[in-house]
């Protein structure tokens, strides 16, 4: 997993509430057995017209927000289906971080597992940020994970909170399975005791 430290880039606003994973990655892109080609599926029904041409009204198709690195999103982003394809697609499209007020639980974990940083801000700060980056002249920002800071073009800085555990995993790009397997003895020990006291679970 690619470590996340200091990342610069454009931020695009997608501020509607409850943008679900069906919208982020429609069903026709879920038929693979690998992770390839999912960038094409991201927001497919909104990003492309029925003719297949890019929809000029969609923010990520507008020249000032093309190739955005961050999304500033509305409440409950990523709700609905557990499909990790939504995160794989966003990542393949070049999205490194999402900034919002609330995120759906499974989506949040999926982002973490894929090295996509989720930043949660209070509603006021998010609205302000949303306004700033909705202006093409000020949509370039910098995210510094070590310092837990979002820096705007005018050099003003917004602080954000993040659990130490999540921060370390993102900074180091850790392999979660590998880390847990280092505790294998502990797990085996727990399992042995647990199955002995609950023998019907064996």
């Amino acid at each position, binding site marked *: 997993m690619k470590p996340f430290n200091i990342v610069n880039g454009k931020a695009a606003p997608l501020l509607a509430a409850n943008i679900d994973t069906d919208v982020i990655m429609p069903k026709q892109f879920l038929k693979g057995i690998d992770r390839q080609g999912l960038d094409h599926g991201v927001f497919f029904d909104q990003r492309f017209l029925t003719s297949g041409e890019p929809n000029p009204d969609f923010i990520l198709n507008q020249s000032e927000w093309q190739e955005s690195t961050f999304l500033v999103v509305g409440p409950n982003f990523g709700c609905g289906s557990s499909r990790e394809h939504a995160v794989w697609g966003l990542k393949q499209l070049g999205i490194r971080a999402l900034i919002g007020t609330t995120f759906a639980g*499974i989506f949040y974990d999926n982002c973490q597992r894929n090295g996509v940083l989720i930043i949660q801000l209070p509603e006021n700060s998010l609205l302000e940020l949303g306004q700033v980056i909705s202006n093409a002249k000020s949509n370039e920002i910098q995210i510094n994970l070590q310092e837990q800071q979002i820096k705007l073009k005018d050099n003003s800085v917004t602080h954000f909170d993040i659990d130490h555990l999540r921060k370390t995993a993102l900074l180091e790009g850790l392999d979660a399975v590998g880390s847990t397997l280092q505790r294998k003895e502990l797990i085996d020990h727990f399992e042995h005791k647990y199955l002995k006291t609950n023998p019907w679970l064996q």
Partner: protein
Amino acid sequence: MTSAKTLYDKHIDSHTVCKLDDDGHVLLYIDRQVLNEYTSPQAFSGLREAGRQVKRPKTHLAVVDHVNPTASLRTAEMPDEGGAQQVSYLGENCQDFGIELFDILDQRQGIEHVVAPEQGFIFPGMVVAAGDSHTTTYGALGAFGFGIGTSEIEHLLATQTLVYKRLKSMRVTVDGILGTAVTSKDLIMALIHKIGASGATGFAIEFCGSTICNLSVEARMTICNMAVEAGARGAYMAPDDKVFEYLKEKPRSPKGEHWKQAVKKWRTLRSDDDAKFDEEVKIDASCIQPMVTWGTSPDQALPIQSTIPNPELITDPHVRNDTYRAIEYMGLKVGQQLTEIPISHAFIGSCTNSRIEDLREVADVVRNRHVASNVQAIIVPGSTEVRNQAESEGLADIFKKAGFEWRQSGCSMCLAMNDDVLQPGDRCASSTNRNFEGRQGAGARTHLMSPGMVAAAAISGHLMDIRKIGQEV
């Protein structure tokens, strides 16, 4: 400092291998996982690439449910190359890693959340995770279930654990008697409407109260299933005699001495009397009306006798915009009566409402009636066992006579990953759980409701109040 614990605390504490930090992260032991063909492939590939094994293969059960066709003649053929590849890769993975699979022709095949309880794969006190958001269903059995993504599936297969962050707790107490033809589906839809699609984000919900106690185990599953539509990452109920009765004769339930030991333990699974919850919600069941969704988020729901809301009257600018957008997508008019909305399709199925009791409810509505001429109506039973049961009870004949297509089991039009896809502009009364834009097909419009309400809509050709059936047609 109080030592009183919620049942959620008890579930998590009894499964904690070790604490990982002071922010609430633990390494959580998982008892069971159900796997499907579409969210598992990359997890198995991950194991293969790293040369890792599955730690306890017998604790996982795989089913084919999302991509298979549901045509009434069952074959092993998949409608498209992608689906075929996913099904064959699941078979290969189960074979190589020693996991049991209910393949498409298996008599136990069906939607994962219907099959797992039916087979007695889930018991009270278990913590269950699966690569599907509706894993919350198992809360109705006194277990704690939650959905995970594909990376987590891989982690779980390899380690039997997950890195888990403790949730906040919410208690939803439901008292009072549900009115005629008002079901547990209406109850959960009313809750989602009340607290919003993210009202329970970051929470585990405990459902309790006299209304819940009076519901059947299957009706309770509908509630826990849809709790995720309010954002809950888990939902659960204290197990009672009804649950033990439900489990008793199931194929994989504990037997003999183990059964006795298990029930003794299961009876202790409840929140302590003075346990504190972070949030409390109370619902009076006697006030709940039959509900339908009019918009594109499950919280955009109203009692059937309502009209489409006027966005102008909404003060919150976000909610106002979302309302405008939903009304436009749904092709509706402000002030329109919900009962005036015509439908082109009716779908009865999904892990929310496709069990035998749901089908009996539908049969009661459609017996000696006929589907409206402009409506295509299909019934997709939740599992092959449910299908067989419905046939032996004579329900299938009632459905067919009433003009419903009687299908084989699967997820089908709940998410339209197979060939049951709606066209742009189609409007479907649906017993499913999500009315998202494009969920049942790009440009298609979904109205969620109870299976009985779908049946009533199918008969009349428009959304209608199930309590009026017989008065109108």
